[in-house]
């Protein structure tokens, strides 16, 4: 036993004038940061255990609690920051890689916030979405170059498409990384709002089969839960090559999260670690990907679009072009801010590129090659609000995936401790004491409300631009102007500077 260098990250402040010692905080903290002293008949706190998830703060009936950064400071040093030092202490003590959850939180530029949206004035009318129809319907899937009509009928049916009532879907999040109640919340919200959610690589729990038509079923490197009924149940199939939070590395669901239901759904023994290899071991090149795409299409009788999800990396445009030519109907690109349940800290924070650049580059590249219509582009990786979506569509996206935002709607407070399995909000956990904290009816309502609200906001912004159908915004980069960007950045984004 040697000296621990660990100091609390957060300070729990309890206003003793307001605390009624009701112990709600004690009962709600899975990290045991609150306790009750029976002898003194009072509640106390242990700062060391606090992860700042706000569960206690939100539930405290007298608003007696608050959490702050622990005020302990090192000697000021712009280079050796407290975080750097603490992480070294931790690694020196454990010899392990640093794990974290959710997405990249480093202060890199957020390019969404360097783009501004246009609006109509005088020369064309803005449109009031409360009075005029405003269409957000979006189809994802391969589009033929042209249609042929014979005798008033289509000569050939369209390739399979996903039909979205708004250009937002719920990102891949697996049962295992999140709770079944969280899955149900998203699935029900997708059903209510006419969009889709994604199984991630966790398989499809039996309770969710009735919502298969709202499900994108993922096929990832571990092939967990993949079987004919699974493929048949989904509305689309997504091959996961990579994700923004951990480009180039695999996944690891620890055995303690593999309870009976996760085990059944993933088709792996109870209590065993679920290890997803870094690559698909049947895909070592683009032609292998083509084989998998067509195997899946064959397996489902060409009835469902096949998506390929990749992390946004340096030469994403060329990769995307290859994927389009390999037969994918949808390409999902996950930027470096994309979230996850668990990822090595250094990978999360230092690998990948911003989704804004990746999107602009891919859209331009596919148009240059004249194949943009052959695939739909879905982008992910920290889409935070409706304006991000409007900007993404204007840059060229067909739709976006939201993960973190959806979880925040369900109650996530971004404490980044998903990997501990002790999510106090019942989201990133399989502990039955915690999962029941998320009532999927409420979760579904909240997630659906978020989509509803964003739908209204997108319509407002579209109307402001004088546009009444989302497709007229797609790739319409004239609707964007850059602010605070270099010429090179403007050039990559394909937009003009504000004032131009």
């Amino acid at each position, binding site marked *: 036993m040697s000296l621990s260098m660990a100091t609390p990250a957060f300070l729990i402040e309890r206003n003793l004038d307001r605390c009624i010692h009701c112990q709600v905080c004690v009962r709600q903290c899975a990290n045991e940061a609150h306790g009750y002293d029976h002898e003194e008949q009072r509640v106390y706190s242990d700062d060391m255990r606090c992860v700042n998830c706000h569960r206690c703060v939100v539930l405290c009936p007298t608003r007696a609690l608050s959490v702050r950064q622990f005020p302990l400071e090192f000697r000021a040093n712009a280079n050796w920051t407290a975080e750097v030092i603490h992480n070294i202490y931790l690694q020196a003590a454990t010899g392990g890689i640093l794990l974290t959850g959710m997405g990249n939180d480093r202060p890199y530029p957020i390019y969404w916030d360097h783009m501004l949206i246009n609006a*109509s004035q005088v020369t*064309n009318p803005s449109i009031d979405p409360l009075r005029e129809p405003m269409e957000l319907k979006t189809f994802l899937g391969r589009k033929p*170059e042209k*249609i042929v009509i014979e005798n*008033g009928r289509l000569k050939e049916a369209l390739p399979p498409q996903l039909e979205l009532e708004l250009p937002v879907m719920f990102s891949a999040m697996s049962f295992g990384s999140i709770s079944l109640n969280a899955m149900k919340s998203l699935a029900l919200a997708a059903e209510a709002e006419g969009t889709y959610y994604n199984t991630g690589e966790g398989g499809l729990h039996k309770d969710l089969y009735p919502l298969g038509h709202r499900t994108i079923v993922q096929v990832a490197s571990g092939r967990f839960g993949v079987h004919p009924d699974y493929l048949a149940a989904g509305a689309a199939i997504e091959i996961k090559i990579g994700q923004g939070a951990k480009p180039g590395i695999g996944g690891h669901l620890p055995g303690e999260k593999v309870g009976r239901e996760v085990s059944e759904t993933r088709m792996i023994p109870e209590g065993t670690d679920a290890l997803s290899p870094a690559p698909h071991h049947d895909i070592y090149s683009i032609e292998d990907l083509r084989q998998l795409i067509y195997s899946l299409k064959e397996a489902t009788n060409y009835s469902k679009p096949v998506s390929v999800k990749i992390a946004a990396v340096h030469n994403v445009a060329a990769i995307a072009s290859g994927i389009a030519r390999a037969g994918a109907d949808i390409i999902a690109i996950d930027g470096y801010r994309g979230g996850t349940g668990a990822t090595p800290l250094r990978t999360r924070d230092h690998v990948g590129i911003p989704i804004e650049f990746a999107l602009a580059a891919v859209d331009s590249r596919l148009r240059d090659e004249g194949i943009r219509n052959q695939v739909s582009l879905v982008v992910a990786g920290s889409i935070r609000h409706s304006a991000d979506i409007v900007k993404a569509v204007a840059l060229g996206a067909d739709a976006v995936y939201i993960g973190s935002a959806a979880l925040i709607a369900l109650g996530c407070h971004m404490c980044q401790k998903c990997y501990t399995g002790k999510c106090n909000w019942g989201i990133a956990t399989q502990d039955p004491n915690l999962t029941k904290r998320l009532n999927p009816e409420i979760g579904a309502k909240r997630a659906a409300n978020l989509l509803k609200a964003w739908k209204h906001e997108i319509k407002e912004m579209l109307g402001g631009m*004088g546009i009444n159908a989302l*497709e*007229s*915004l*797609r790739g319409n980069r004239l609707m964007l102007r850059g602010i605070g960007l270099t010429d090179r950045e403007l050039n990559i984004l394909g937009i003009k500077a504000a004032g131009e």
Partner: protein
Amino acid sequence: MVGNDGWARPWELQGNHRREGSKRIPSGCAIAGMINRKGRTMSGVDAIQSIALMHDRSNGLGGGFAAYGIYPEFPEHYAFHLFFDDHKAREQTESFLNQHFNIELGGPIPTRKVVGISGAPLIWRYFAKPKLEQLRVAEMKEDDFVVNMVMFINERLDGAYVFSSGKNMGAFKGVGYPEDIGEFYRLDEYRGYIWTAHGRFPTNTPGWWGGAHPFTLLDLSVVHNGEISSYGANRRFLEMFGYRCTLQTDTEVMTYIFDLLLRRQGLPLETAVKAVAAPFWSTIARMPQAQREVLTAIRTVYSSLLVNGPFSIVLGSSQGIMALNDRVKLRPLVAATKGDLLYVASEESAIREICPKPERVWSPRGGEPVIGMLEDAMPKAVPAPPVTVCHL
């Protein structure tokens, strides 16, 4: 840019933007159009008179006309109308044209002096046919070849601009009020079975004649009132098909959309219209299944060709005219008939000015086209010219 084969590939070019194309200009306008469905020709006087009545809808910064059936003596020749900044540009262009075409006749377009029209460029026209060996080298259909040539000139040849390229038709346009432009071009001396006219109200002063309406490509012409909010989306989609929107005017996009859908993809006019001014999804949902499938497919495949924002247009072709509003009808458009004549205009008064007692006058609904075709033409695709590709 010219490839090793000597063939122009405009889509490989980075635009050397000058002239109007360097800035995108929103504008308001007056439009008018008329057709004699029996194919009987009318003098340009009516068209001038009609558009003149809507004087206040334009601001003197652009006016123009398209007329069909005006060159009966050269029915099979492409009638190229060009603006030249100077004779150097003209000579360079003529050499290019001679390289690729057999020019039957060429010379300045006759004009007369008019008060209020100044700064006119050199305005020439050439009646020409592509050289067969050039077609062979290009391995292209004749119409694609011509389009390519037009794009190349407009994009690459400094000081030259093709503003009309159809057969037995011509566009006449310039900076000024439309009635003055008509006077300037001596349109009273032409007779055509279709006339369209345009008066422009741009919100800046480009001072360049090529920016006026109509915009044409082959025998398609478009006069347009409105601003296309979807311009960026439409344009980037069209660029995938090789179109270069050098002028950044909305109308140019409209022309290319119809060129793509009608000429290159052979869609029926009705279908093309549904792509441009699509019915709302709520309307589609109420349609019978077959129709619903067709419209869903149109909106899915051609979603990027939906023209959003306020507009009214008159599309002219050798087969007829089509007038169309945006689907919400945010710009005025009135139609009227009398006998074999169909009139469309921004204002009813402009029709009554030349046809005081029409048999029927109506205001077309948003997205519902008014189509007037020659009686011996089917109201569908403009038939593509025969393929003349020769494989060696």
